[in-house]
């Protein structure tokens, strides 16, 4: 089920009313409702893949319960590896099997051995598989690390794995954050509910109005890049930067907002990333739930930055490459990760990557300073160049696109309408910067008026057929 569908518009109020008015007296029943609703939500796309979520839930539930029962560290580790291998095998088969087969065939082909592709299978990629497998892995890893006690309550655990607001495109929740909330009785809060609604509307605006308006132009430019000059290709890349930001952060906002309606607080996923002053800051603001996941469960176990410069550099390369590969089985994503690791490395070497960890541009001023302006501009351009790898169909296309961008510059064709969307979003983001939860105080009537206008604008732009980009990951 898509957030921007009529089905969801009916589904959400029904679940909300049942949750707070029918099942509110008993926590178990409330959690059971979350579980059933989440399975309905997911099964709406393809009910056959519910078995995969269910299997993943059972395996990690049993392993989670058994890890603390083991009398030796070695046995605990063995169980943890069983969980990790199971999850990665499921992910690997559905997401990466064909990629590896095709890459081997290409490799042999390049040295003169033609192999018939009998191993390539027609595999459907289950929606959200990368998100929920990472979520369940965090559960068993945290139990192994003794950061979390396993739950015996299967319904609550299954609700954690399949929690519908963030099941298919995140934020990737940690068991340490979400599971305790599921196990505890929730109370409805007016402020939380209003914030939730604001976030849902804001997310819908970003998705329906901005991302969907930019999508046709981006698709056109990237699929026919050979026919356009460098100026148009630059615009195409910039439009994609905003399309993916609005599409993905819009989804996260709707997910966080929807969770608030049920009394849950999910982790932040985006913090105005295009106002970053360097690449380090960008990665602290972009897809935070994934980058912190890799930091906590990959980078730090590899030694992080504590085992000398060379090992740290190796670790940085690893997490960026793995992060790229997580997005999809294509060399374009791997190069995207590699590109970002190269961008990140200088600031790491010169110890500037931890700059700007808590502040945001123009924090106490009306406008950013000229220095901030230049820093944000440079970071945005670099990130936009990276998006070319991310969006291109093949790695050859991405290099051709980039070479035309830089070597065949020309005045772009008439694309004024799209620029308006970009400017409008940038301005609105700048106004609310630093407050991604939208918990600002507004007068009641102004709030009401704003919400009504937003709903009307969303309805005006509404296009039933559009999906979210991150569903494919």
């Amino acid at each position, binding site marked *: 089920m898509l957030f921007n569908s009529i089905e969801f518009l009916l589904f959400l109020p029904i679940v909300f009313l049942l949750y*707070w008015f029918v099942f509110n007296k008993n926590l178990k029943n409330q959690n059971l409702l979350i579980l059933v609703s989440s399975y309905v939500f997911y099964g709406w796309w393809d009910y056959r893949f519910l078995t995969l979520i269910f299997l993943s839930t059972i395996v990690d539930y049993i392993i989670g319960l058994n890890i603390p029962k083991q009398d030796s560290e070695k046995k605990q580790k063995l169980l943890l590896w069983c969980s990790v291998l199971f999850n990665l095998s499921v992910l690997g088969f559905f997401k990466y099997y064909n990629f590896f087969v095709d890459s081997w065939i290409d490799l042999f082909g390049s040295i003169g051995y033609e192999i018939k592709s009998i191993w390539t299978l027609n595999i459907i990629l289950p929606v959200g598989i990368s998100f929920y497998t990472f979520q369940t892995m965090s559960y068993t890893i945290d139990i192994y690390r003794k950061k979390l006690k396993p739950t015996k309550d299967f319904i609550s655990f299954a609700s954690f794995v399949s929690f519908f607001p963030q099941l298919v495109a995140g934020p990737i929740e940690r068991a340490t954050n979400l599971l305790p909330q599921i196990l505890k009785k929730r109370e*409805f809060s*007016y402020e939380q*509910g*209003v914030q939730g*609604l604001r976030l849902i509307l804001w997310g819908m605006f970003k998705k329906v109005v901005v991302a969907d308006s930019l999508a*046709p*132009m981006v*698709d*056109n430019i990237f*699929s*026919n890049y050979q*026919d*356009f000059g460098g100026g*148009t290709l630059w615009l195409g890349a910039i439009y994609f930067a905003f399309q993916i930001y609005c599409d993905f952060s819009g989804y996260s906002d709707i997910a966080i907002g929807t969770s608030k309606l049920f009394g849950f607080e999910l982790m932040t996923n985006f913090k105005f990333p295009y106002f970053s002053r360097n690449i380090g800051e960008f990665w602290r603001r972009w897809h935070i739930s994934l980058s912190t996941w890799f930091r906590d469960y990959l980078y730090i176990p590899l030694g992080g930055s504590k085992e000398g410069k060379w090992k740290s550099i190796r670790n940085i390369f690893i997490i960026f490459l793995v992060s790229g590969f997580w997005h999809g089985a294509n060399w374009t994503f791997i190069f995207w990760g590699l590109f970002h690791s190269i961008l990140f490395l200088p600031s790491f070497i010169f110890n500037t990557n931890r700059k700007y960890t808590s502040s945001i541009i123009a924090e106490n001023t009306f406008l950013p300073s000229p220095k901030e302006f230049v820093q944000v501009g440079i970071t945005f351009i670099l990130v936009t160049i990276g998006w070319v790898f991310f969006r291109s169909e093949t790695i050859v296309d991405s290099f051709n696109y980039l070479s035309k961008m830089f070597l065949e510059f020309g005045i772009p*064709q*008439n*694309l004024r*309408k799209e620029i308006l969307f970009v400017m409008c979003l940038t301005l609105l983001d700048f106004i609310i910067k630093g407050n991604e939860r939208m918990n600002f105080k507004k007068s009641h009537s102004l709030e*009401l008026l704003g*919400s*009504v206008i937003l*709903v*009307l604008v969303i*309805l*005006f*732009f*509404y296009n039933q057929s559009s999906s979210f980009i991150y569903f494919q990951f």
Partner: protein
Amino acid sequence: MNRFLSYILKILSAVLFSLGVLFLLNEHEISKLLESSEEVNILFNPKHQQSIIDFKLNQKKREISIIGSSRTAGFEKEMFSNESVYNYSMIVNSITDIKNLIIDLNLSKGDTVVLGLDQWNFNSSYFSRLSNSYKINNINFPNTLLDDRKETSDYLLIGGKAIENFSGFKNDGSYFYGKRFIVPKPELEDYLFTDTYSRIQEGNRRFEYGSKVDLKQIKTLEELLIYLQKNKITLVGFFPPFAPSVNNKMNNTRYEYSYINESSKLVTQLFHKYGFKFSDLTKIDLYEDSFYLDGFHCNRNVYYYILKVLGISINPNFKNEFEISEHDKINLNNYFTDLDYLMVMIKQSYNSKD
């Protein structure tokens, strides 16, 4: 919780109320317009594209629907032997638009669609082929409220451009160019097709060079043909003509327009596959440049001829006068004489106050 529910109720009520008000206003405006168009001659030329879409979509369904860009806008109801004709031109841009419009029209079995397909919509180098201009007025915003109106003895003029130029959509949906028919030719923007030639020389504004056909457009077109075949709707398609000298210029080896021939082949094959007739009328030898309003818009004489070529039953009594009918010419002259007279009077009274 009660406070929250009342907050949601307030938002919902305000949204529903706003939608209701907009709906009523729009309905009222549209029905007033439709009533007027049944009683008097109108020239409808509103500020907003959405008003044209709303106005045309709300028309009574007819047996023959003409669909296309401004290059099909000149087909008049009087040209057809069947009187149940409406011209839906100028509310679509892309092939997707055309498909969506035809589906929304909900045509009946046995109805006919006369479809003009702009050649450039198949050129993979032409950007705007993907810009959709046809859109349902989701929130019923009453755009026409903002348009001025003026009544003359013969016509109701709606919209600033209708009043200024005596141009706009007539009751049958066809477009009347108005003032441009009485303006001395050298004053027109594309006199001797200089503007079209410059488009060709620079390869821009719909005349982008291209050798590659955008197969996605062919696929979208195929979806439309499947829909029409399934619903037993007759389709007659064509590529609208360019003026002869424009065709000659485009055929110069300096300019790459091979996508036109390529797309013509593909589209013809596709139409035949689904049992429909398609004619590539990019080049019509019978009519010289003077039969064209500009480099790529023909006049009513050519439109009438196109119907014959397409095998559509035409009205044998149609008075095929050059460019415009004598009746329209008289109306135009009267209107601008009156308007000039009015302007002189206003100026005189303004000066006397000084």
